[in-house]
């Protein structure tokens, strides 16, 4: 067992992990943050996307020990302290970007990472940013629209 400290959604969390434990498993199994979804465990689908020190990453490909001392943001961080939805979450709902919802948390985190570093992306930049997040329901059009909408208002 190795002891690590993660800053998760602004709160410092100390956990003991195996050398092989992934960041995804720490978030889900140890910290109970089930919004981050687990599917392919190979970095193919993007359902487990979180933001690590400002960059969107597939948390199934990051070992927990690699995240030691770093800042992690999950979908649970998006709403504000009083529980109000972020503009990005609202736009996903309003524009119909959510269907089955399984890709939604990862999609939101990829979109947030993009908008944080580039508040006014082009459509191509949006599509590039979410190209690692698979969605089988929507055909992506409404997801791209939702991100564009936030960028226009932001």
């Amino acid at each position, binding site marked *: 067992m190795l002891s690590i400290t993660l800053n998760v959604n602004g709160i410092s969390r100390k956990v003991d992990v195996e050398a092989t434990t992934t960041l995804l498993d720490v978030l889900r199994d140890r910290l109970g943050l089930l919004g981050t979804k687990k599917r392919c465990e*190979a970095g193919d689908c993007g*359902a487990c996307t979180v933001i690590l020190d400002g960059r969107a990453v597939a948390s199934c490909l990051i070992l927990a020990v690699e995240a030691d001392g770093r800042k992690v943001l999950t979908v649970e961080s998006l709403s504000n302290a009083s529980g109000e939805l972020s503009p990005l979450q609202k736009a996903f*709902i309003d524009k119909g970007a959510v269907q*089955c*919802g399984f890709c939604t948390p990862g999609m939101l985190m990829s979109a947030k990472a993009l908008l944080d570093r580039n508040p006014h992306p082009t459509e191509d930049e949006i*599509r590039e940013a979410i190209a690692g997040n698979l969605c089988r329901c*929507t055909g*992506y059009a*409404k997801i791209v629209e939702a991100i564009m909408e936030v960028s226009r208002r932001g």
Partner: protein
Amino acid sequence: MATTSTLTAVGRPFERLDGERKARGQALYAADIELPSMLHGRLVRSPHAHARLLGVDPSAALAVPGVVAVLTAKDVPGRNAVGSRGVQDQPILVTDHVRFLGEPVAMVVAESVAAATQGTAKVKVDYEPLRGVFTPEEALAPDAPALFERGNLCHQARTRRGDFDAARRQAALVVTNVYRTPMVDHAFLEPHAAVARPDGGDAVTVWVTAKTVHPMMDEISRILGWPKEKVRVIAATVGGSFGGKPEIPLGCLVALAAVRTGRPVKMVYTREETFQTSAKRHPYVVRLTHAMAADGHILGLHADITADAGAYTTESRAVVGRAVGHCAGPYYIPNVDVEGRAVFTNNPAPGAMRGYGVPQVAFAHEIQMDIIAARLGLDPVEVRLRNVLKPGLPTITGQPVLEGVGAEACLLRIRELLAAEDATDPCPPQGVPDRNGELLGWGVATFYYGNGRTAVEDVGRARIRREADGSFTLFVGVPDVGQGSDTILAQVACEELRVPWPAVKVISADTAHTLETGPSSASRVTVVVGRAVQEAARRMREFLDSGGGADWRPGDPLPEMAAEYRTDSTSLDKNGQGSPYGTYTYGVQAVKVGVDPRTGKVAVRKVLAAYDVGPIVNPLLFQGQVEGGVTGGVGYALFEGIRLTEGRVANPNFHTYLLPTALDSTAPVLAETVESHDGAGPFGAKGIGEPASIPTAPAIANAIHRATGGRFFELPITMEKVYRALRR
């Protein structure tokens, strides 16, 4: 657009009821469910596609720290056979005969997933490998090893009407081609998962990811040998279905393990397990012969359809049953001779997938129509217009098309839209690159799709309760699989109750609280379940309007109304004649492609669609279905396909089985509806789930032909195939 202007809830683009929960990451899918002292299951799966199972020795696995139990077929107390639609031929754990690679032979139950996985490696299994059959042709050969005592022919179905041979003799033109479509995966992102909790010693609750819960309850009760009342099945949030789910053996196995160990049990399939062992879309070989009059009328159709059913029946009978009735397309054809069959092989068993046997035959009949048009010197839309079904004409099953159907109107609208495109942004002639170096072309495809289950009386049921605070709760047996059915049904209820949106809360898919109402499939929920919801709401409104419930006091039972709706569909005779569906959705898609002549890469540039789908209940969800359906169709057309080697899936993950990404799916999808009045559904609405996807692949194939001159008779039309065709 069909009019819903006098309505206040139906026809409005309301946000979905579960949107906020999903956007917060709070929606719990089956794999997210955690219960105290829960155990975890993993399966020992056969490495052989066809084998005798000689013995299973669990002793070494039981010695692995953390392993609690190892279950084999001997531990199944009830009848070890599950299936769908009345055919139960699949064991949840193999008894003696392995029929596909990855079939479960034992389940290891342990304190952790890691211990269970370790345990599976220690279970000793003796097999005697048998020769396998991996194509329908091999399976039907006289010396083929049989999967079942009754042989390898799973099912046969016919549609016959008029005299095809006479039509053929009169024909000015006869066109015959063979079309092949691959096995494809639903590829919903959510894993197959289930959790079971024992409730005392004689009851169990099971959470599944599923399009239907009541049949799952029936299967579990038979496996356990328990009465149904002792089994409660609840759909957790469902992460996509597209016809797939539930994985019946999975739900049964966790229930059995929970009952055996007395503790909650969870099992989640890996992505590779899902690809190797769960249901898919059937691969088809379709041979079509059209007998044509010189003026472009279809005189007769002969069709021969063979589907690979894989190792068990699952839904193959009904899939082939639907295909033989839909293989003509939405055209009037007086003389028809169609035979379809499903054949057992040692491949993973396909099941239901968006379109239920129809995307395969639509690929065939719509390329035929384009070839016929070219041979007769007619415009592709024109040849379709000359044959399209109109009110009063019979389909090939002899069902008269209802008054108010707008199939012809869809074609006329697409013709107008294409003329406008041609005026503003014309494509260069075939084979000539545009200024960007791309070969361009439009292709069209038409389809129709019977709403509801085939040739059975389809039943919808619903219940509405008025709560103490004056709001309403709607109870429906179908899960929202992601398409938004909870929202659609709540809109119907709100409209009929004449209450403001969203005064109706929905509880769906819990066998303890909802009535059996069939699956969330067959494009039936809006139509069949929707009508039951409308009727229950009407009864509630009339009850309240007439003063009912006015004297209600706290402590009294809450006022409640239930209703049932039955379609007026009929069974089919031995020639496949009858009225198998209450209503049909009709439509046309036109797709523009750009082909890079240097590489053969095909990009979809624009999609136009016209639908006869009745009034739209929720335009936002409608557009979502069409965009998602088209994107699925693009994958089917251009790159998706399960590659099998002697029953082993060679591309069992998302880096080898590629799905369309946001970079592949850039074309605008402009969908319109035409006026139509035949809908049996609430306020005339019809189903869109499957119709969204069916015409896309043939429209793309026809567009590639228009752009390049290459004809493709087999899906997927990969870059390599297009490149080779361009070099010829």
